[in-house]
């Protein structure tokens, strides 16, 4: 195990021991190793430096590395836990963990709160929701009148912003999500359950090969 880890750390800065990562997340050791296979291919796709930068993330998500998207940017920003400008393997596993079907609902709700709080003030303000709504309409080539947009915002804030201060705080968000559980749908990736079949890992064999040569 030690041999694998130190080789991996040289090529993959910030690489962490799969056993450690498995103990901190809902993933098993083999699932972490399978995630490593996925991570390797994404992190090498534009610059082979063992780290996932924004272009590589966009490439993996949209099959188009130049495609800019407000929401993908938010996800990238949250995955990049220490604001380094790239996602390392530890970030990758720990962030995907929140999307695991077995991850606690509370973690998922907290993640979405941070996701939508664009400027990180600790509140989801109406202006931020408007900005996201407009971005969504743009992306989907949907057109709504300005009035319709305001009506949708009014309606949303009427329900979510209980103290009517023009912004949604964390506890209001929790209550709102309890009443609208479908909002958490984006926070669960059923594909994470089958990860070892989707990305078979040959870690054991490659370690043996490296020792032999």
């Amino acid at each position, binding site marked *: 195990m030690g041999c694998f880890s130190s080789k991996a750390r040289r090529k993959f800065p910030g690489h962490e021991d799969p056993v450690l990562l498995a103990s901190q997340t809902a993933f098993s050791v083999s699932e972490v190793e399978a995630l490593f296979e996925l991570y390797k291919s994404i992190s090498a796709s534009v610059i082979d430096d063992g780290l996932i930068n924004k272009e590589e993330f966009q490439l993996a*998500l*949209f099959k188009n590395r130049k495609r800019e998207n*407000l929401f993908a940017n938010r996800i990238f920003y949250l995955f990049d836990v220490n604001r380094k400008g790239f996602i390392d393997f530890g970030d990758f596993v720990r962030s995907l963990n929140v999307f695991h079907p077995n991850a606690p609902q509370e973690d998922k709700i907290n993640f979405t709160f941070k996701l939508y709080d664009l400027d990180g003030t600790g509140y989801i303000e109406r202006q931020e929701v408007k900005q996201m709504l407009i971005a*969504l309409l743009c992306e989907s080539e949907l057109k*709504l009148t300005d009035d319709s947009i305001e009506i949708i915002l*009014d309606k*949303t804030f009427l329900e979510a912003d209980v103290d009517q201060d023009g912004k949604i705080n964390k506890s209001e968000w929790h209550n709102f999500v309890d009443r*609208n559980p479908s909002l958490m*749908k984006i926070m669960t990736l059923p*594909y994470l359950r089958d990860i070892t079949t989707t990305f078979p890992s040959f870690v054991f064999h490659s370690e043996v090969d490296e020792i032999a040569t």
Partner: protein
Amino acid sequence: MESSWFRKGLDSRQVSTEVGDKGMSPVDTNVVSGTSVSINPTETKLDLTKPNNLNAFDLISLSTGFDLSGLFVTNDQKEEVQFTWKNTSSAIISKFVDIAMYLKFKVKENQGFMRLEGCNAGRSGILSIDVEIFEISSSFHLVEVKKCGGDTTEYQKMLKRDLRPALKEIVWAWQGEQQHH
């Protein structure tokens, strides 16, 4: 009495896999001819006094930027397909009824939610797909198609071979794919 196409957020999607047919009534595809269908919704404008409309976050959640399944599978392999439809919901229902007739599938429908069921059991049971219609405005809808039962490969073949070509000229945009209008 008006019937509404509004869906109760996207909750219904989670419920539908647990609760059988959700009170859907079968559409008798033998009786239907051409595009006229004996379902009687009436189009209503976006009426936000009703409790069951999409809220801002339901819409925002639709973004492909939030859809991390792209990390794991290609578009072809995704089980859910969404597209926007710049027309009335009764027009999309008629279209799916036509498709079902062509494929010799049974159709059940209730308030913007349809289930199409094949007749021949494939490897994993009968292929059935769910179609849900979400109203964004009275002439702009989001349609979601997903596999309900049966073999995934058969489902994907059906999407590629039958559904996409049949919808090609009228779909406004396929969510998650670059458009070529």
